[in-house]
């Protein structure tokens, strides 16, 4: 008798215990991130024996140069890739949820175009004025992102439609406007063209501990806040009115997710540039693997996004080393075939 009471009561009614699923998944995913990180730490222009890397992790005073390579170059990039992957995939999943559109990605609501315009203006100013502005580029990008966030918010308020279409159209419109301005800047640019294009395609090579310390809190707290809206996002999948009937204030929910998501993306993108594809495809893969329930789908996206981006960044460093391919190109080149394979298998 005692045994039957202890037998996980939440499974009796035919409903699986999602908390158990979540905990197992987080454990597995974290181990996965750790494992992939340790492996990727071994790849780079300078070959360092895995044994040495392992001992450098515990004791960095063994070899100055190699310690510098591991601790100041490779490790920050891996951690930056982890945080960026978590941010892009989680926000992508949440935006797909509020827009009820599986084609949405973290960049669709305009914030990235604002960041890109800000960064390009910064780059153009640097060449025009001769001042060295490279270290201020994230600030330019962040200000641009905040400007676009504000403009999208204003236009979605003016828009007649109160449902998700209003927000989506506002985002797309601001995206086009800012992209056009970027095109003008690119057309006018000469020497600075290369830096601009590299920024636009995303780049983790400038990762360092200071940048990591700046983005960690916004990403972690922001994603946790998004996770707490999971049940409401589930309700919204049934439709705008259905969610209202279930007591979900859809207008507030949409604005909350839009603001939190945009601030996460603005923070990350300001340092990394526009890394595409991750935020679009990883939530899909998560849904294929564990179903659409946002309570497990969003954390799964975060974990998969991190692993995916660590691997892609390692490839970006390795393929034509010592040069680098922009990581945005790698994410699409690797991700698209993988995604098509998963779709077919399903």
């Amino acid at each position: 008798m005692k045994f039957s009471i202890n037998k996980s009561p939440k499974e009796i009614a035919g409903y699986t215990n999602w908390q158990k699923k979540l905990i197992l998944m987080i454990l597995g995913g974290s181990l996965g991130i750790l494992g992939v990180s340790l492996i990727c730490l071994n790849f780079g222009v300078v070959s360092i024996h895995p044994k040495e890397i392992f001992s450098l992790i515990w004791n960095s005073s063994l070899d100055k140069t190699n310690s510098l390579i591991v601790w100041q170059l490779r490790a920050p990039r891996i951690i930056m890739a982890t945080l960026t992957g978590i941010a892009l995939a989680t926000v992508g999943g949440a935006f797909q949820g509020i827009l009820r559109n599986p084609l949405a990605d973290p960049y669709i609501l305009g914030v990235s175009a604002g960041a890109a315009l800000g960064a390009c203006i910064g780059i153009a100013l640097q060449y025009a004025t001769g001042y060295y502005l490279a270290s201020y580029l994230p600030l330019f990008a962040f200000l641009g992102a905040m400007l676009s966030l504000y403009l999208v918010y204003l236009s979605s308020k003016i828009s007649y439609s109160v449902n998700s279409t209003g927000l989506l159209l506002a985002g797309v419109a601001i995206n086009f406007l800012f992209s056009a301005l970027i095109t003008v800047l690119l057309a006018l640019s000469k020497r600075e063209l290369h830096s601009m294009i590299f920024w636009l395609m995303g780049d983790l090579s400038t990762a360092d501990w200071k940048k990591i310390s700046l983005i960690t809190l916004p990403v972690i707290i922001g994603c946790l806040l998004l996770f707490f809206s999971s049940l409401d996002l589930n309700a919204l999948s049934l439709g705008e009115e259905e969610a209202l009937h279930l007591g979900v204030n859809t207008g507030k929910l949409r604005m909350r997710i839009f603001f939190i998501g945009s601030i996460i993306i603005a923070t990350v993108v300001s340092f990394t540039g526009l890394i595409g594809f991750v935020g679009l495809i990883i939530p899909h893969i998560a849904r294929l693997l564990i179903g659409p329930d946002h309570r497990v789908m969003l954390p799964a996206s975060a974990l998969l996004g991190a692993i995916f981006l660590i691997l892609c960044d390692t490839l970006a460093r390795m393929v034509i080393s010592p040069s680098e391919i922009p990581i945005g190109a790698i994410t699409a080149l690797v991700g698209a075939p993988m995604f098509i394979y998963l779709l077919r298998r399903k």
Partner: protein
Amino acid sequence: MSFHSPILTIKGVSFSYNHHREILSDINFSLSRGELLGIIGPNGSGKTTLLKVISGILKPSKGSILLLNQDLNNFSIEKIAKFISVVPQDTWVAFNFKAKEVVFMGRLPYISRLKGETLEDYRISREAMKKTHSLSLSENNIQEISGGERQRIFMAKALAQTPQLLLLDEFTSHLDLKYKYEMLNLLKKALQEEGLTIISIFHDLNLASIASDRLILLNEGRIEQIGTPQEVLNSENLQKVYGVKPILINHPDLNVPQVIM
């Protein structure tokens, strides 16, 4: 007549989008507990709008709605969700949830976002599926079942919400004869045993006549007549509102009017 206070009172309600033409004009009626009120009327007569005004999705431009003698404006949508549930006419789910997960969403108004659901929420969801004969669908993906099956799942979801007032918009449109019959029995039982109150839109006048205690006949946003099916379904009303002259006969068993073309 019972002395129960009405569960819902609609007083002089009008509705228009941005001061354009009124879609609903001066609607008045009240509803007692355990009653099934049918709404009939031609296309564009304001049936669905009336349902949306009652469920709090649209705010009336004039008049007031009292739910359990309190103005609906005083209820937050979170609170309304504990009293009223709705089965929509058409359902499209953005992501491919399992049917049982959709039914479980009916429990959302009761689930604390921090503490999560309880075993009771699962039990109620399962009970609702049992009642709507949809338990066998529980593991199926919602995007991959038929329209009628989806309607049963959404009915189960609405029941899992344990409402006092259930609003149905054409809930039988995709159901075959067997499930129409079973759903009607289910609703009759819920009305009598659980004190549920129902407002339902019908396109099928004969079904409306069989199922409803009272009928509202809407015409161009106004109530043409409200009363028992015998009172409302007469050839004069039907000719005025629908513009056709049907033949009315009496149902041999149930003694309610039936319309034949």
